[in-house]
């Protein structure tokens, strides 16, 4: 499977600092996004810690598969999904411990949405209100659940999606990294098909740009970096109220016939303002 990816993060048009952070870890086909929260520079610290801890754990387990798996998870999950979920538990612990050790960091936290592609299998692990989407045959499907109060109210039928969009409580999260020593991680496995497009994004995108606009942009722009740039532009054109980050991963069309092995392993990656969470 050929994989092309690109990502952009931008401070937006209202905020002065960028608490979003993402990483495209090319050799592993690992894609990570985190949106930090907390006073002063602490949101930036939290999201950077989250991404760093997760990527580090995934890299280490590539060399040492016997490493401990953290958290309870179903035994029928693949090794990669277990690892990814485990890495989110570790990232949580890292932020929590840092806040304990540095009183001025109390209250800092972060969302974390990570995707790991292994052949046709996609593993997703997630906490918070950043999102992973899959565009397949023109249909955009959200793969993650928002761990926010309003999303929970919609799932229970207490609010309609329209009421949720107007709600004043959109920023209230039920789960985030760093808030508690233990955390519940949402994980899932999916099978990828040729032509699929994966999008990881922060709420700065989804609050400004509608899902049909996102689907249209991903379909119109085949280059992942240009697509992510376009999405960020759209969010800024429509207000840019928050930091905005988009990571786009495109799975090449399914290789046809016996010569498919010739093309295996080809890939292309681009990224802008990456792991440093630049402005």
């Amino acid at each position, binding site marked *: 499977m050929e994989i092309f990816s690109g990502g952009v993060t931008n401070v937006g048009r209202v905020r002065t600092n960028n608490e979003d952070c993402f990483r495209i870890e090319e050799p592993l086909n690992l894609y990570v996004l985190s949106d930090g929260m907390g006073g002063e520079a602490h949101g930036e610290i939290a999201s950077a810690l989250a991404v760093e801890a997760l990527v580090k754990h995934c890299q280490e387990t590539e060399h040492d598969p016997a490493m401990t798996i953290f958290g309870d998870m179903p035994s029928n999950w693949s090794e990669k999904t277990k690892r990814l979920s485990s890495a989110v538990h570790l990232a949580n612990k890292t932020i929590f411990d840092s806040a304990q050790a540095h009183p001025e960091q109390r209250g800092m936290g972060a969302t974390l949405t990570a995707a790991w592609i292994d052949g046709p299998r996609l593993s997703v692990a997630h906490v918070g*209100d950043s999102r992973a989407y899959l565009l397949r045959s023109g249909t955009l499907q959200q793969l993650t659940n928002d761990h926010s109060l309003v999303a*929970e109210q919609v799932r229970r039928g*207490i609010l309609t999606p329209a009421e949720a969009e107007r709600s004043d409580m959109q920023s209230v999260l039920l789960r985030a990294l760093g808030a508690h020593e233990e955390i519940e991680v949402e994980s899932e496995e999916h*099978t990828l098909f*040729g032509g699929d497009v994966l999008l990881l994004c922060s709420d700065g995108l989804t609050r400004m740009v509608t899902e049909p606009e996102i689907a249209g942009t991903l379909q119109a722009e085949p280059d992942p970096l240009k697509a992510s740039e376009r999405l960020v532009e759209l969010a800024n054109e429509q207000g840019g109220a928050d930091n905005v980050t988009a990571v786009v991963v495109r799975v090449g069309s*399914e290789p046809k016939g016996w010569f498919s092995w010739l093309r295996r392993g080809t890939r292309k990656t681009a990224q802008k303002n990456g792991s440093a969470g630049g402005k």
Partner: protein
Amino acid sequence: MAKLTLMFEQKTVKEVPVGSRPVGIGRSPDNDLPVDNLAVSNYHARVYFEAGRLVVEDLASLNGTFVNDLRVERATLHDGDSIWVGKHHIKVDASGDTSTFGDTGRRGATAPRINETMVLDTKARRDMLQQAAAMGERTQFAVGRLKVPTLVILSGNTDQKEYMLTNKLTVIGKSKMATVRLKGWFKPQLAAQVNQRDDGYYVGPGDKVPRVNGAPITGPMRLNDGDLIEVCGLRMNFIFRD
């Protein structure tokens, strides 16, 4: 605090406040609001706070629970609503209510605008999770609520006759990775897809445009119990299995 007043015609029968515990309504005398009428089931309905909203839930009663004129299984209550069970009704007074998480409702912004992202503290979160757990229990006990979405193959060449939809994404196609695997020459790798969303299951196009109940879909379409889906010579029913 919200208050419920049981009325028979214009007469007040009983008044109870709604606290952290659900208020039970039914013919059995151990209900908080006992209703002495044969049209009312023993445990007919209950009212409780959930995520800051006052909710009424019908407990699979024989003759139903109505809010104002509408029969409901579950509904959010607002100040001034009337819940009808048999010939009795219960007036809802939520005027003095200060809810746990602030009112996010249709009556507009009473809660302060929160711009900064925040996480609910441990206690609020615990309450929320407890409510979720209680909700889960109720869902299992309520009649016919716990159902598994299933595709039943009526005609066509597939590897199984029935598929339970357990994943968020289900693909129908010839591909080895497809859940519903089509057999035969010239079948597309990815014919169509069924996706789970918060509000239900949607069928969407793949390389082909499926037909639902005879009509080609124009985009992802929400499936109802019993819908007939046709794609690539395959005919199947979408049903909720017990």
